[in-house]
């Protein structure tokens, strides 16, 4: 009966109730987006790092992967040393460089990854075959679109360019053997993967037997601390970065995002709380006579409170559920915009949907709805009956 009364009370002023639900829904959408933003980018980055199972990255001392042009020398020896450890399952050496695809008098510059196709973890082949042949490459969709190349075409690719002499160096004819999706590159970035040895040869003596990073996959993730310790001792000129280390660095860099989202999320909660409190208070004030009469005919104070709190809760829950849908739509839209942010991997989601985030948003707003209804409910249920009835009669 109390639920029936609560819902009927909300139906009495439909327009006001609809407006309030819309307001709560907007607050809920913002809250959900902020909860998704505060955890989404971090979680998305973590998932991306672990997507191919590599738990450790080795980079030149003091750098992050591809942060600078610095590289690791004696790559073959390091690779051999790493592969000799029984805890290590797979080693993927990667060299990053810019290369130029020559087309008559012009050229198109693209990012190239020198990889070992048998152990690489940087791309997923979508069509054709992998670049196992020394004279082949795989390219992403953006590259193929920009160059007009197709699988099977032969391209003239140079690794160096002298702007004063306007000449290219390290030129090589490479066949496009396949199309791939590169996991760690930004949206719209042109990219190719070339066999590591081929790219090292093209880049000349400066990059001979050098790589930008190693990605390492362990047989058993529980040995990670032990392996890291060994690596730091055996390879003192190289930084050893585990996924946890990378996440800690990401956390440092995303601190502002989290603070911003926490503040905006808190503002959304306060707005939702005030909205529900205002509406329930106005509604209660309009019904003082009815409420006092209910108390007079024997409805208990607790039941009056429950009924009014139910009204606030119903508003909040309805708004929160609608807001969840709205929040997911706006998150998708905002994600599309933010994923074009330069330098960030296209695979990163700023707003990663996690059921926990949705439940958190709905739960927080529901709790707000209950709290928002408590004060006006208790006030109404505590009105002195005789004097309020007299005032109502006079009014």
């Amino acid at each position, binding site marked *: *009966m109390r639920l029936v009364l609560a819902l*009927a009370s909300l139906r009495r002023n439909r327009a006001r109730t609809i407006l309030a639900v819309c307001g709560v829904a907007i607050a809920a959408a913002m809250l959900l987006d902020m909860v998704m933003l505060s955890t989404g980018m971090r979680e998305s980055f973590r998932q991306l790092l672990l997507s191919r199972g590599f738990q450790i990255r080795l980079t030149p001392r003091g750098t992050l992967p591809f942060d600078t042009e610095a590289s690791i020398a004696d790559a073959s020896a390091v690779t051999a040393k790493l592969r000799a450890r029984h805890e290590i399952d797979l080693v993927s050496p990667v060299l990053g460089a810019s290369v130029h695809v020559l087309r008559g008098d012009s050229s198109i510059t693209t990012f190239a990854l020198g990889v070992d196709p048998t152990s690489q973890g940087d791309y997923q082949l979508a069509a054709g075959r992998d670049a196992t042949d020394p004279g082949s490459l795989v390219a992403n969709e953006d590259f193929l679109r920009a160059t007009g190349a197709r699988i099977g075409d032969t391209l003239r690719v140079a690794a160096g360019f002298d702007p004063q002499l306007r000449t290219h160096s390290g030129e090589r004819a490479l066949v496009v053997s396949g199309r791939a999706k590169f996991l760690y590159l930004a949206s719209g970035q042109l990219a190719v993967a070339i066999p590591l040895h081929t790219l090292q040869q093209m880049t000349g003596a400066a990059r001979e037997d050098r790589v930008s990073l190693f990605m390492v996959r362990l047989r058993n993730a529980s040995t990670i601390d032990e392996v890291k310790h060994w690596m730091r001792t055996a390879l003192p000129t190289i930084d050893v970065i585990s996924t946890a280390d990378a996440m800690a660095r990401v956390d440092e860099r995303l601190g502002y995002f989290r603070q911003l989202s926490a503040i905006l999320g808190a503002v959304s909660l306060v707005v939702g709380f005030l909205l529900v409190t205002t509406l329930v208070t106005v509604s209660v004030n309009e019904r003082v006579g009815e409420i006092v009469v209910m108390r007079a005919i*024997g409805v208990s104070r607790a039941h009056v409170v429950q009924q009014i709190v139910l009204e606030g809760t119903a508003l909040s829950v309805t708004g929160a559920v609608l807001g969840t849908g709205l929040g997911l739509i706006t998150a998708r839209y905002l994600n599309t915009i933010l994923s074009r942010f330069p330098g960030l991997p296209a695979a990163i989601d700023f707003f990663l949907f996690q059921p926990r985030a949705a439940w958190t948003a709905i739960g927080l707003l529901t709790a707000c709805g209950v709290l928002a209804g408590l004060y006006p409910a208790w006030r109404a249920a505590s009105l002195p009956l005789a004097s309020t009835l007299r005032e109502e009669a006079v009014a």
Partner: protein
Amino acid sequence: MTVLVQARDVRRDYPLEREAVHALRGVSLEIEKGEYLAIVGPSGCGKSSLLNLLGAIDAPTSGTIEIEGRNVGTLGDREVTDFRLRHIGFVFQRFYLLPILTARENVELPMAEAGVSAADRRKRSIELLTYVDLGDRVKHRPAQLSGGEQQRVAIARALANRPSLLLADEPTGELDAKTGKEIISLFARLNADGTTVVVVTHDESLARAARRVVHMRDGVIVQDEVSSG
């Protein structure tokens, strides 16, 4: 006859900023089961204050009020609310039906509060609405009913939990003369069927219908007359 209500030297003061208003100045009154009593007097004489005390929605400043042998002035909020629910029926001048509920749902409300099952509530509410000649209006909301019909729904609601005492504060005050007469005859019928009725009224015809009339002035009972008929 059995005494249903016993008020002894009841005083009710309302403290104001400068001085207290003495609404009741030592009222003693006995009401027996099955009585039909009207309380009359000029505005501000303390009629409604007395009715509120008899209905346990207010507590006396001093003195005692016993209803069915229980001193209602000493009960806590939860107990007195439950006492009102099960022993007292209220009818107000302005009906105060919940506009969001149908006539039947309004009558069911006190029964739901008392824990009566849905099936029994439904059955009794329809019986009561039929008793007040509104058997064909059970699904109507208050806004779809006339003033007299609304007051009859309010009377049915007051009877929902079979109260031992029915209190009415100016029940014909908002009604035209013809509709007022219908309500007066309904109260007479209720009393004839065994319900103890106490009405506060300015309406002479309603007062004349009662078998006992208590006259009040300045917070005291000045006359207590029982009609011979």
